[in-house]
């Protein structure tokens, strides 16, 4: 069986958007008889080593790349190794390579418009910088609209930041991570605060966790499954010798639930 390779940074391995995308990338690949090999790596050196390993192997036909950090360097490396690739990247990182482009500005507009309709004046975005696809450019764009507090990907930091902000009065909190959003809600409820009346909570990642939490969490559906399938099909077209086409990812939308 011939395979397609995918490297996921350890920080993004637990991200449900990345999980949904990875599951969906495999759908067209499996239909076409390929396997999807995924390796979780701790750093850029390990990622490079994996690409070199795959380039030296006859069993890997190409690489699906998740953009978001050092994209130009990684693309240059893949090209120098002669590994065909297709990438999911922020639309401002699009270049002369096959890709699915995610319009971060559009995403920010969708979320910003929703947040503007919330009743609480203060809105804070508590980032996790974990999905390794568009999180950094999203963080930059959102900083133009709301306060941004980084958590470094640690749930404890996110909870501490959220509780501290909530001390200052009613607010809306936006989280990169659905897991962080759920943990914060649990802490808020334990300390007698009402969600969403005192603190409204929105997750930038929709997931089963958001859907089954109590209260259910309002979230951004980032279309991970659809983007994944597009990326898988773009990969197949690339190894078949197709041109460097860039597909436009579908726009995200808000799934309004009980938490905001």
């Amino acid at each position: 069986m011939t395979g397609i390779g995918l490297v996921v940074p350890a920080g993004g391995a637990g991200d449900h958007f990345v999980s949904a995308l990875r599951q969906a990338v495999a759908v067209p690949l499996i239909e076409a008889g390929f396997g999807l090999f995924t390796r979780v790596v701790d750093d850029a050196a390990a990622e490079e080593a994996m690409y070199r390993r795959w380039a030296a192997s006859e069993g890997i036909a190409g690489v699906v790349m998740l953009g978001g950090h050092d994209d130009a360097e990684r693309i240059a490396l893949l090209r120098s190794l002669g590994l065909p690739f297709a990438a999911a990247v922020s639309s401002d990182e699009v270049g002369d390579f096959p890709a699915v482009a995610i319009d971060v500005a559009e995403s920010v507009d969708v979320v910003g418009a929703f947040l503007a309709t919330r009743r609480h004046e203060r809105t804070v975005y508590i980032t996790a910088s974990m999905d390794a696809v568009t999180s950094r450019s999203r963080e930059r764009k959102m900083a133009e609209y709301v306060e941004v507090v980084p958590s470094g990907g640690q749930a404890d930091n996110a909870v501490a930041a959220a509780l501290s902000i909530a001390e200052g009065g009613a607010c809306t909190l936006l989280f990169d991570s659905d897991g962080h959003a759920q943990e914060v809600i649990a802490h808020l409820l334990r300390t007698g605060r009402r969600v969403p009346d005192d603190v409204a909570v929105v997750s930038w990642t929709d997931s089963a966790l958001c859907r089954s939490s109590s209260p259910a969490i309002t979230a951004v559906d980032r279309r991970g499954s659809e983007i994944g399938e597009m990326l898988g099909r773009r990969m197949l077209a690339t190894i078949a010798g197709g041109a460097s086409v860039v597909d436009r990812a579908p726009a995200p939308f808000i799934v309004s639930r009980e938490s905001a």
Partner: protein
Amino acid sequence: MMVSRRLGPSSENTRSAVLDMIRSSGTVSRIELAEMSGLTGTSITRIVKSLIDEGLVVESGFGDSTGGKRPSLLELNRSARYAVGVSLDEARLSYVVADLGGRVVGQLATPGVAKKTPSETLPRIAEELGQLFDHLGIPVEHVVGIGVAGAGLDLRSGGEGLSRAAVEWESYPVQDVLEETIGLPAVRENDAACAALAQYWVGQIPATDDVATLYMANGFGFGLVSGGTLSRGASSNVGEIGHMVIDVAGPPCWCGARGCLEALAAPRAIVDAAAANAPLRVELGIVGDDAHLRRDFDAVARAAVRGDERCLALINRSAEYVATALLSTVNLLDLDRLFLAGPGFADAGAIYVGRIREALVHARTRSIHPVTVEISDPGVDVAAVGAASLALQYVLTPHTRVRRGRAGA
């Protein structure tokens, strides 16, 4: 909070129990291990030395002093060993490589079993395992074993009343053949049991809590982890919730009974009902055969989530039957925490959660404790993650095995 577990002086598996204590503690000192286990300091020192010599445990700094020298802390050497979990599924084979701490470090997804027999599929699995190790740079000598999550009953040498599609798989000695082919220990459990085990490990749930998981793929399974170990029943076949009778006047089930949960609420029943509505069949592109069952069911589930009333009625009906079965199960087992897992809940899981929560308001124990219902966090690869955990547990901490008999042996 430190949990004590006294080990008997004649325990044959003291070493594995100490290793498990280090795993569940994160970091721990030798003194704490002695307190937790009831073993002498000398015994702990000797056991820890052997674990360090084998590379399974490393010293990772120093703890706080309680008056004398600061104690050195121990933790698992996570990358010292790996285990692989394989989920056998008609639509997709999912392989997961987990390190010693249960962290997923690699995955492989390949075409599913479809209708192929074990004798056709196992050579492919062996070949793909070789590719997995090679392409992901996993040293084979550090792989302790393979866990296999397979659907349905584990009938070992055969039996009666087997499902239509899985006759050969049910009775085939998968683990024996895999062990022989790949030269690594193998252990097999049903996918629901693996899902429960994954929730227990990944969710860092204390060993004192019970973890119950309802798994839905093409049918249903029910897994229960109690006291840190899987409940297996007399023949490793506990949890056949799909054949709980919900409606005595219901449709016949392939097992011979009538009105089983599977016949009423599983994806096949829902897809058949959707396909009977000609306009809906065309609209959703329902094919209707077994090869497309997962895709057809997903189409119905997604349409229900989008608000299509015809599909919502079908999923709601399925969810009502599932909720009824779980109310009885909760009453029978006095459960307080339920997880829903597997690909069947990927799209419409929230609808099922809602219906089940409504039903469990009537749980007999409602005045004593609440019953929570959640969708399992390890996602759709939950069975493979659990199978890898099973292999780690089976090989590295044999003291946790159930004495009654080897699963699937």
